[in-house]
């Protein structure tokens, strides 16, 4: 082996590149889901490693809830532009206008409805494969999902009827109208993502680093005040030093108290944290023991 040391990050990176190349080679019309969040920024770097010096043979696609943090959207647009890659954005608002999504209150969390717009976008462009940045360590439903996850015509995941996945030999075949979701970073953990961001010096939205932010406390969560979330009469607005571990729908993504201003400091905090990523930050995943499982069965990625 000589002096070469193949680290866990090298192993994970090579596996992800291999998966992306399989998608490009075997799927007719793939897409890469890209939100501007840290996992999808890692995905973008992996795609560069997989396909440069050529352009990607697939577009970037974002399903915009319009509840996103402006810093994340800005980062999404800048990265796509800098790389010179095609970005397709489809908004939940379009589905609401069409009537395919009916919501009671436009300010309530919108994650449950993302699946509808995603499926409409898949149909609009005829995508047969969508690569996403989900990880198995995030959640127990994800822990049981394949890297190549087959979905039927309704985009549904059937956990009891998954294709066996052996070695690194992936079955990418689908019939017309069906598609697969592909998760090239399935085997990465939150820590791996941060170590990779540090190693690759990736630019990520500022809100991942500690900053002062006006928040209110609801139950065990700290919620950022925004145009969508205003304090109720009895609630007190505090300004805390916080950072986001995940960035999703502003109405249900909670920051954690932190003073970590650099990737190294975030890695140190991640090494000692006692709360899972989603447990700390995603209020919509805590509503029931099976929230994610149910959403995935409806076509969520």
């Amino acid at each position, binding site marked *: 082996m000589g002096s070469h040391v193949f680290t866990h990050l090298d192993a994970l990176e090579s596996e992800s590149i291999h998966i992306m190349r399989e998608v490009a080679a075997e799927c007719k019309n793939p897409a890469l889901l890209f939100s501007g969040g840290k996992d999808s920024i890692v995905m973008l770097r992996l795609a560069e490693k997989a396909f440069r010096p050529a352009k990607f043979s697939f577009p970037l696609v974002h399903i915009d809830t319009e509840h996103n943090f402006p810093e994340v959207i800005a980062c999404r647009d800048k990265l796509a532009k800098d790389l010179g890659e095609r970005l397709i954005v489809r908004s939940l608002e379009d589905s609401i206008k069409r009537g395919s999504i009916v919501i009671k209150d436009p300010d309530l969390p919108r994650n449950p409805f993302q699946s509808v717009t995603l499926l409409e976008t898949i149909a609009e462009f005829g995508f047969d494969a969508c690569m996403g940045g989900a990880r198995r360590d995030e959640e127990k439903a994800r*822990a049981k999902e394949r890297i190549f996850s087959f979905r039927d015509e309704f985009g549904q995941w059937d956990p009891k009827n998954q294709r066996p996945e052996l070695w690194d030999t992936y079955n990418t*075949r689908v019939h017309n109208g069906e598609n697969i979701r592909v998760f090239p970073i399935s085997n990465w953990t939150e820590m791996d993502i941060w170590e990779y961001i540090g190693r690759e010096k990736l630019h990520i939205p500022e809100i991942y680093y500690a900053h002062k932010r006006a928040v209110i406390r609801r139950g065990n969560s700290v919620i950022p005040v925004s145009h969508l979330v205003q304090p109720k009469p009895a609630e007190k607005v505090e300004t805390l030093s916080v950072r986001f571990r995940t960035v999703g729908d502003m109405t249900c993504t909670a920051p954690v108290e932190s003073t970590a201003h650099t990737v190294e400091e975030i890695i140190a905090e991640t090494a000692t944290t006692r709360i899972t990523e989603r447990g700390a930050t995603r209020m919509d995943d805590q509503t029931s023991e099976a929230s994610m*499982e149910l959403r995935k069965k409806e076509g969520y990625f």
Partner: protein
Amino acid sequence: MSNAIQLLRFITAGSVDDGKSTLIGRLLHDSKSIFEDQLSAIAKTSTRRGMEAVDLSLLTDGLQAEREQGITIDVAYRYFATPKRKFIIGDTPGHEQYTRNMVTAASTANLAVILIDARRGVLTQTRRHTFIASLVRVPHIVLAVNKMDMVGYSQATFDAICAEYRAFAAQLGLHDVTCIPLSALVGDMVVDRGDNLNWYQGSPLLEHLENIVIDYDVNTTDFRYPVQWVCRPQTQEHHDFRGYMGRIESGEIRAGDAVTVLPSGRTSRVKEIATYDGNLQQAYAPQSIAITLVDEIDISRGDMLVKAESMPNVAKEFEAMLCWLSESPLDTNRKYILKHTTRVVKCLFSRIESRMDVNTLARHSTTTLNMNDIAHVAMKVQQPLVFDSYARNRSTGSFIVIDEATNNTVAAGMII
């Protein structure tokens, strides 16, 4: 942060009764890989079920679909890390679909932990798990003799079980076997040594997992490079760039090395080993790279670059051990799709030599294969495959079989 942290993938084989879930829970808990919110969730469930202590086995509890229907979904992957290594556990339930599930999980594993209840010793299922581990060629085996607390931590009991097991494993050609006495429930010899097994001189399980040498689990001698994707940017800057992208499945390559393209047999030399981070002088398995050649020759996805001094087989007929994975039985009258490295071809099953009883290792003749069956078969493919025996090379010796009608993966094959 040290930069030399390696990744080790392992599976655990055993039934609930052997304390498999408790062992995984103990590994995660004592290595401080369980988060507070996960612990409080299982603490709540433990209390609700009337248990006094937190039941660590609940950490591997499944999905709503599983709880409702009393079934267990095949493979769940779990992640934990110590300062020395990162670990991926392929956790498979030990029920009726076990052969299929274990073959699946074992296919990517460096190591298998085979669990035994110290009170019951080597059982039929132990032999089955060990046979599957040998079939799929998991490089390292750990026999975890659990529930030592239930046999008074008896060294004699442990020694007898180990001797019987080692004799059986040797028959299957397994030599890298480590036996560890432990109690997952109490926590002895899992992460910490505990106070009850002082006669045992070896490492606790986690220390063993952290230190076992895995550098030679991949074949380091035969260069095998299946072409995944041909990169032709055709831009002004990269006008002449023609990179053959792929992952080195085994062996190594240097700039300037002579290579042979199979199945065509044409030869050339490596001009550059290109990566996003710059050109390399040499590259090793399992790196993903791009190779450019000195000569312009016709190469496409499914071809393989190799070196002349270690040539693989190129053939349209071969024999394999097959694990049938599908609920629909094998129909030898039908053509199936076979995917081997980056090559997809049609295939036929010309003969089923024998079906193997995974409990007794006896061979029986048969005309079809059902789910979980393991068989020795003879196969024919429409275009030649470039392959090695699975024993020599896990990557170029393995394939999957797909049913064209349903697109399901119906079998896993290992070339003899």
